[in-house]
């Protein structure tokens, strides 16, 4: 996993984890508070329902008591129910209907002690039907209402009923009365707020959605429509608070948090990508430069103006490279000295080889001069060829050794003068422009080596123009470095064909060339010479635009009155 990816993940994590914790906390607190509020509302409503039932029970009981007293005192009832007077029977049959309406009840039924219905208000013509269980079952839950499913001619209905009893003529009668119970009206309580009251009868309805807040009130229940099988059961008044609003709120919060999370993630990714790029790019550049460093290529530039850790690292690498350069120079010098002995022995051997014939000829001539002086000219003429060939051999040998190991004569050198000399010698090859600094300090180095370097570089620049019309080679000199380590920079810029990155990567390889008749050793020798001079070489190039070769050489600390590299 790359450093950039890790940085990216770290950024995203740092932003998302707190946001997730916040979302979780808000949702949990919202759930807790709303559920507590719902619970309070449900139980408050359950209390109201219970109080309402208690109140209605009292009202029904009071009305029944009034009807009971009126009926016990009514002679027509006595005649019909006790004396079985046929003339009063019609009145009794119609009694409950009228009394029920007057009392504001929905159910009214008068029975004798055998359970025979004497008069029914809600179902006038069910008279004489036996229903002995009803009063007994209704009397079981004392002082409370029971839910009764009663029957009319048109159908069934629900009522909240109570029972009362009285005695007339020594006979026991019961009177059952009740108020209508409309399950639909019950269910309409605050339906907008999700609060609802419903009635669940045995075997007809299950508890509502269990995910809501629920309170259940039990009520005695009698199903009078099940003739012959009436038993006391339990109906439930169920108060529920739907959680749909809470769910909707949760969905909204989720949506908003997801939106915030999405936006934050996108922003975090962008910011992280930007930051990672900012942080990793200089490091990657440093890694790239560092990867190119070896003993033969120690001219990478780690100069930077950053004042952060990367700047410090870059400077450290620059210092390290500088020390490596010095070490490489010393190493090369040691190597040169080590190889000097071998060369000396070779030279000794070669010279001895060259001198041996001469020595033989000289001994021969000496002997001839002593033994036969007269023939000395003739013998000399005969051995002259040997002498000349030996001398030629030695001369050639000397030339060869001279080319093999140039001798560096480190001394003050005016770079501007060398540039002018090289420009003079290169006239005719290309259009040359000079931009020479006037106060250029002297450099320490071998003028001949510097000249060889510039001849190579300017020659390459001239070749790269390739006859391009109007193109020129510009040679610029300028100060560089800092007061503690001053240096001089010479820049050879051309407007030639430039180099590709691949070409640049191989530019300093031995025997690598893009010219038809090149040796591929020019830039290798140039770099070696500059390193020997303690300088640095850098190439900036762009295909079809041109190339800039930048050479920096250490300057001599200026002495008062002799600061210019220009000589008169």
């Amino acid at each position, binding site marked *: 996993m790359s450093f950039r990816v890790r940085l990216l993940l770290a950024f995203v994590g740092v932003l998302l984890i707190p946001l997730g914790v916040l979302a979780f906390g808000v949702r949990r607190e919202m759930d807790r508070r709303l559920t507590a509020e719902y619970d309070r509302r449900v139980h408050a409503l359950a209390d109201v329902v219970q109080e309402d039932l208690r109140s209605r029970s009292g009202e029904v009981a009071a009305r029944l008591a009034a009807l009971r007293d009126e009926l016990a005192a009514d002679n027509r009832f006595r005649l019909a129910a006790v004396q079985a007077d046929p003339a009063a029977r019609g009145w009794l*049959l119609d009694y409950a209907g009228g009394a029920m309406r007057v009392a504001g009840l929905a159910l009214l039924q008068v029975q004798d002690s055998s359970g025979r219905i004497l008069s029914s208000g809600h179902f*006038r*013509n069910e*008279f004489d039907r036996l229903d002995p269980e009803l009063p007994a079952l209704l009397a079981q839950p004392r002082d409370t209402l029971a839910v009764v499913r009663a029957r009319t*001619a048109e159908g069934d209905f629900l009522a909240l009923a109570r029972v009362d009893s009285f005695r007339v003529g020594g006979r026991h009668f019961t009177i059952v009365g009740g108020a209508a119970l409309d399950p639909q009206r019950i269910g309409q309580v605050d339906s907008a707020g999700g609060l609802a009251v419903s009635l669940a009868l045995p075997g007809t309805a299950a508890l509502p959605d269990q995910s809501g807040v629920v309170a259940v009130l039990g009520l005695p229940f009698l199903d009078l429509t099940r003739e012959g099988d009436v038993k006391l059961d339990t109906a439930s008044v169920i108060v529920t608070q739907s959680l749909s609003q809470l769910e909707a709120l949760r969905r909204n919060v989720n949506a908003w948090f997801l939106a915030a999370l999405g936006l934050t993630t996108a922003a975090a990714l962008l910011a992280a990508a930007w930051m990672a790029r900012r942080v990793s790019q200089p490091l990657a550049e440093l890694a790239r430069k560092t990867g190119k460093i070896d003993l033969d290529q120690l001219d990478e530039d780690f100069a930077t103006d950053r004042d952060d850790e990367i700047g410090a690292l870059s400077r450290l690498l620059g210092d390290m490279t500088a020390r490596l350069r010095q070490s490489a120079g010393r190493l090369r010098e040691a190597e040169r000295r080590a190889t000097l002995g071998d060369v000396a022995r070779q030279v000794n051997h070669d010279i001895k080889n060259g001198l041996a014939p001469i020595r033989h000829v000289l001994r021969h001539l000496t002997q001839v001069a002593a033994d036969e002086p007269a023939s000395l000219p003739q013998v000399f003429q005969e051995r002259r060829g040997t002498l000349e060939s030996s001398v030629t051999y030695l001369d050639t040998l000397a030339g060869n050794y001279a080319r093999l190991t140039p001798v560096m004569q480190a001394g003050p050198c005016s770079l501007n003068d060398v540039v002018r000399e090289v420009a003079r010698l290169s006239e005719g090859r290309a259009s040359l422009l000079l931009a020479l600094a006037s106060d250029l300090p002297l450099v320490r180095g071998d003028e001949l080596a510097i000249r060889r370097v510039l001849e190579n570089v300017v020659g390459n620049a001239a070749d790269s123009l390739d006859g391009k019309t109007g193109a020129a080679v510009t040679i610029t000199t300028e100060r560089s470095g800092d007061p503690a380590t001053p240096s001089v920079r010479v820049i050879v810029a051309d407007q030639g064909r430039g180099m590709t990155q691949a070409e640049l990567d191989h530019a300093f390889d031995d025997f690598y060339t893009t010219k038809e008749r090149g040796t591929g050793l020019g830039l290798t020798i140039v770099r070696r010479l500059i390193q020997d001079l303690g300088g640095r070489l850098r190439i900036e190039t762009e295909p079809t635009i041109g190339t800039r070769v930048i050479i920096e050489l250490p300057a001599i600390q200026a002495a008062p009155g002799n600061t210019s590299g220009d000589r008169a």
Partner: protein
Amino acid sequence: MPVAAPQAFVERQLYETLVRFDCTGRVRPALAQTWHPEDGGKVWVVTLRPDAKYWDQIALTPQAIATTWAADSAAGPLVQAAGILAVAALGDHEVKLTLAAPRDSLPRALADRGLALTRRAAGREPVGTGRYRPASGNNPSTLVPVDTGPHPVVRVLATRDLRDALDAGADLVVTDDPGTLDYASARAELSSVPLTWNRTYVLVVPKRLGFSPDSAWSARLRETLARDAVRVDARAAEPPFPWGSCAGPVPAGAPQAEGARLAYPADDRTARDLAARIVAIGAAPARSIIGLDSLALRQSIRAAREPAYVLSVPKMPLIPCEGPILWPADVTIVPLVETRPHAILRRGAPRVSVDWDGGLRLVPEQP
């Protein structure tokens, strides 16, 4: 003369039939003066009374009778039910009625109120031949005598509670409401007269349920219903029952599941009471009752949508098998109770006569 009576009472004063059937069961002249059979009873010749004319003094002609019966959509089925094939004029006062088959009882059929003779007038109440006509246009709340004479003006009182009509001085109130009758009995200036048993209530159930109208159980049911279930003057239904040969087509609908509803005419309280009692004691395959208007009831019967019906039919129709008695073929008709209205008359009020069907007719005062 203020009265509070059904619309039928008003119509009986406005519109006449050819003959009328009095409470003794005799055919009396009305628009027809005489009638006699010909061709063995297959043709009847009816002679109109010479002064038979509409309120607007246009004479009633035999041709007008044919036109009225042909044009009146209500009269058409009755004419057909009476067996009349053709109506033809014989001179200015005689009408020849040709029957599909000889029928001795044709004069009685001509007394059916559906065959009353009227002349249609656009946008107005039909013009009749009775002794009374509406005082103005389409307002039949006040009836005035057509001829000058000792006929009182009849003012129809419209009150929801008939006791209010009695208190307002009504000379005649026709009702079956026990409360009104009870109130009238407490007033010395009023007398209550029971009219003819004119309606029979029946239970219509599918034959497959095995009801027997003649069983002892049915007889007990009739007694119980008449005594306790209804709140009008009622008695157990007694034969003859006129629907014996009136079976109609088998209903197209499939038989309904038992345990459904017992249907009754929604505007008939006595039918509702009977239906409720039948359901209460489980005497019919129904658990509840339902009131239907006349059209829905007729459609329901024809389609056999409900397993049972409680209906009322005329006790003794002048034209058998006419009107609502159009049973499906596969039903049993169990007679239940028959009822009658009462006429409450103020002492000293103009005299009224009673027709066979219990309808009241004002008797003209003798000069």
